[in-house]
């Protein structure tokens, strides 16, 4: 464990050192601030209440969008796995969502709904098609021999879902989370930067750009990166725990391991 921490600390130090060297070579804080200046600014921001309010509201919008995208993706994936008609029906819609530029969606949402919910919907639109496709693939790739075994042994529908379908889908589902969460977070923040909801990380980044406060821009970008990693890890841990709970429980709710 200590060896691992030491290794990753060293890697981080090398990258920060590289950042420092570039900052020294550029020689102008306005163009490329040094890591220390960014750390100091981050420290200043972190002792204000507004910092947490800003992060909280951005998180609320984007995580709500991610959660909605996951829910829609799961339901849609299950539906299209079982129905060829539904698969054909939704295929064009999913293709459109996947290939339409995010900015087009952002401006359309502002036009149709409101700028405050745009980051939420954008995050959902990034996550939905990825989770949808993977859940569908997971269902379709479920071992038919195991399903036949379950039918022969008269397993109930809920037991089949719990003991066969869920474990079969889980790897596909987690892969879709890993692939889409980071993208959704970044797209949500990008929507905020374009639409500047009153209290948001996007507004802080946008203000920093307008007033040429490059140190602030870097500091808020660091916040976005850290939150991206934290969200991804938390979501994967949360869904793994949920799946594990589901997978290790038999009929009647009795925990067996």
């Amino acid at each position: 464990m200590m060896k691992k921490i030491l290794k990753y600390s060293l890697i981080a130090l090398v990258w920060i050192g590289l950042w420092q060297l570039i900052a020294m070579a550029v020689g102008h804080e306005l163009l490329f601030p040094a890591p220390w200046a960014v750390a100091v600014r981050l420290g200043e921001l972190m002792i204000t209440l507004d910092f947490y309010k800003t992060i909280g509201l951005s998180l609320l919008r984007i995580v709500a969008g991610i959660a909605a995208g996951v829910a829609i993706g799961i339901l849609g994936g299950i539906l299209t796995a079982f129905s060829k008609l539904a698969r054909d029906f939704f295929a064009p819609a999913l293709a459109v969502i996947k290939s339409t530029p995010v900015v087009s969606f952002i401006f359309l949402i502002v036009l149709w709904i409101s700028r405050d919910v745009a980051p939420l919907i954008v995050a959902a639109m990034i996550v939905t098609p990825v989770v949808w496709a993977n859940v569908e693939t997971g269902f379709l790739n479920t071992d038919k021999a195991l399903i036949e075994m379950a039918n022969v042994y008269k397993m109930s529908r809920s037991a089949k879902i719990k003991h066969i379908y869920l474990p079969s889908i889980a790897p596909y589902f987690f892969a879709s989370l890993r692939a889409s969460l980071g993208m959704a977070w970044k797209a949500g923040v990008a929507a905020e930067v374009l639409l500047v909801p009153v209290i948001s990380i996007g507004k802080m980044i946008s203000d920093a750009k307008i007033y040429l406060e490059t140190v602030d821009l870097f500091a808020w970008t660091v916040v976005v990166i850290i939150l991206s990693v934290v969200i991804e890890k938390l979501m994967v841990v949360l869904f793994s725990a949920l799946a594990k709970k589901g997978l290790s429980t038999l009929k009647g709710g009795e925990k067996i391991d």
Partner: protein
Amino acid sequence: MTELKNIRKSFGNNVVLDDFSLKLTQGSKNVVLGASGCGKTTLLRVIAGLEAIDGGEMVRDEKIAYMFQETRLLPWKNALDNIRAVLKKEDFALAGKYLATVGLADAEKKYPHELSGGMAQRVAFARFLAFAEATDAELLLLDEPFSALDKETATKMLELLIEFSIGKTLVLVTHDEGDIAFADNVIEL
């Protein structure tokens, strides 16, 4: 009682069963013999209702227990939970009982990938026995259930099966002619 009359079953142009008739009297012990690919598994699957027939008539017992040629264990569950997964909660005790019966009491926490081919087959056999007891199955259908076992263990398991099947109808698919000694009826395909 289970009866097949003039059954026809084909896969594309390949006719596997043609005008095939069979009567399995209650409590009879039947062995199906034949070369690989002659249709033994298809016959068993037809009897179990796992394959739709192209023609003929069939009457069969309602309570069936079936053991597949492959183990079909759930890879994410240990041996004990693989058996429990096909049982109702009130029958969970049967899982431990039959794992012990097939000599795998010590392996109940092992996952399929940690078991040898023979051990996995015995877990599948224990699951079959537990399910058959729990559902009071009248017709026992087994497709080469001991093919991965050494001769000595296979003989023990066969004795166990014969004892278990008293009063029940048994159909055993095998390629081992040594298994026919106990049979009332040998079906050669």
